[in-house]
């Protein structure tokens, strides 16, 4: 497995988790989500976010409503649902489990 491929696989696995995390903090619109993901280098291109958002919405983890914006057309704001919050908590638990075990592995190797 090349490093590039490794990165893609990791990102792919974590993308949903990260988006849920961002949405759980406050009501955000798509561009803000993209901005944050880009800053943390989770995604490279913006297009990948939209199908994920739609998938999350289909599984009832997030919801959206339209809000007028001061400049330009109305924007779609996303927020997390109760069901999504529950799911996110489970994800956080499993993530910290994985994270700690990987860290442990790395330490023992040293």
């Amino acid at each position: 497995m090349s490093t590039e491929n490794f990165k893609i696989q990791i990102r792919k696995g974590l993308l949903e988790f990260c988006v849920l995390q961002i949405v759980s903090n406050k009501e955000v619109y798509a561009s803000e989500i993209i901005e944050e993901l880009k800053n943390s280098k989770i995604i490279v291109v913006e297009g990948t976010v939209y199908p994920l958002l739609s998938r999350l919405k289909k599984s009832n983890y997030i919801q959206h409503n339209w809000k007028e914006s001061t400049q330009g057309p109305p924007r779609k704001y996303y927020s997390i649902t109760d069901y999504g919050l529950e799911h996110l908590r489970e994800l956080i638990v499993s993530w910290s489990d994985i994270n700690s075990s990987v860290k442990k592995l790395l330490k023992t190797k040293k």
Partner: protein
Amino acid sequence: MKKTFTISLGHSVFNVEEDAYDILKMYLDSIKNYFQKMENDSEIISDFELRIAENFSSKLSSGKQYINLSDVKEVIQIMGSLDDFQEIYDDDDQTEDVKEEKKENNKLYRDSSNRIIAGVCSGIAEYFKIDPIIVRILFFIAVPLNLIVYIIFWIGIPSKDFDPDLRKILYRDKENGVIGGVAKGLSNYLKIDANIIRVVFVISLFFGGAGLLFYLLLWFFTKEAKTIGEKMNMSGFNVNLSNIEDFIKKKTKNLNNSENTLTKIFLFPFRLIAPLINAFLKIGVLIFKTIFFIFSSILIVSYSILLLIFSRILFEDISRVEDPEFYELLNAIPEYFVIFSIIFLILTISISVVISFYVLFKKKINTYLFMLMIFLWIAFFILITVSIPNVILIIQDLDLLPFWISGFENNSYYYK
């Protein structure tokens, strides 16, 4: 100076330059295609458009009021190409879908999304993954046989919608062509060197000229690639950013790449006659249209006259006709034959009107209606043909035969 298109995208309106519009449209179409297959969700696409619109509006200012090619390229780079999405979203369940689709494509269908009559040619083209034009022309050349084959296929094959955008399309490449760009277009399409195709065309001239016919038909039936989108489509490029750049690079390279001497010598006579042939063809098309127009008008007029006569026979008492022999002859004709002939003539007239409308003004009527007309026409043609001997027998019984038939009768009598 460049032409611009006004588009509405994500609740906003933009002016987009022509070349930028081509690329943008291809990009959005390819995305639409991809996501529709995947989630069957139009929301993703509208979100996409919204985001692109945001990007575009940030690029506009009072000094720059349109979107150009570099803006579009930048946006595509930001949004990502199909390859990027595939990396993230190619799950197991989706690969299964793709497999299934491939399996489906191995069956022969009639293509209801791209048809002229019933989509048989287009379906065959889809099956072999070639341009429908080629199949249509082959059908056109094989005249007597094709009708039967076509009807059999029509009845026997189920129809299905195919996505026409996924197909490579045969265009004429006039920019790089010698006469009409047919050979170069074919070479783009088949990925064969253009000169090989040219040589084949030239050689075919010495063997009955089938190649010439093929060339002319292709010339008539294919479109010239004009926009960047069409030019890319003709070479079978998929649309994403790297491909667009590759394509533009290749094009500029091609311009610098000069032909070798042998090619020049080979092409020289054709370059010489190219303008001549072009002019001839233009005149030819004009003459063809005129002849067709005159022919069909004559046909219509003569049929109308015939129709009038027939209706007089049917509805009017023609006892006043001075020629009693003629009267008797007319009365002897059985009524069913007259009715058949009238219906046949009406059908012929309406079909020729429809066809001439199509040829002259590119106006189509409902295909099923047209096919129904054709079928009825054939049916009545057969009915009339079958009843003609009977009618002749009846007339013979009258002993009032026109001279040419009585002459024939005398001869046969003589042989007895």
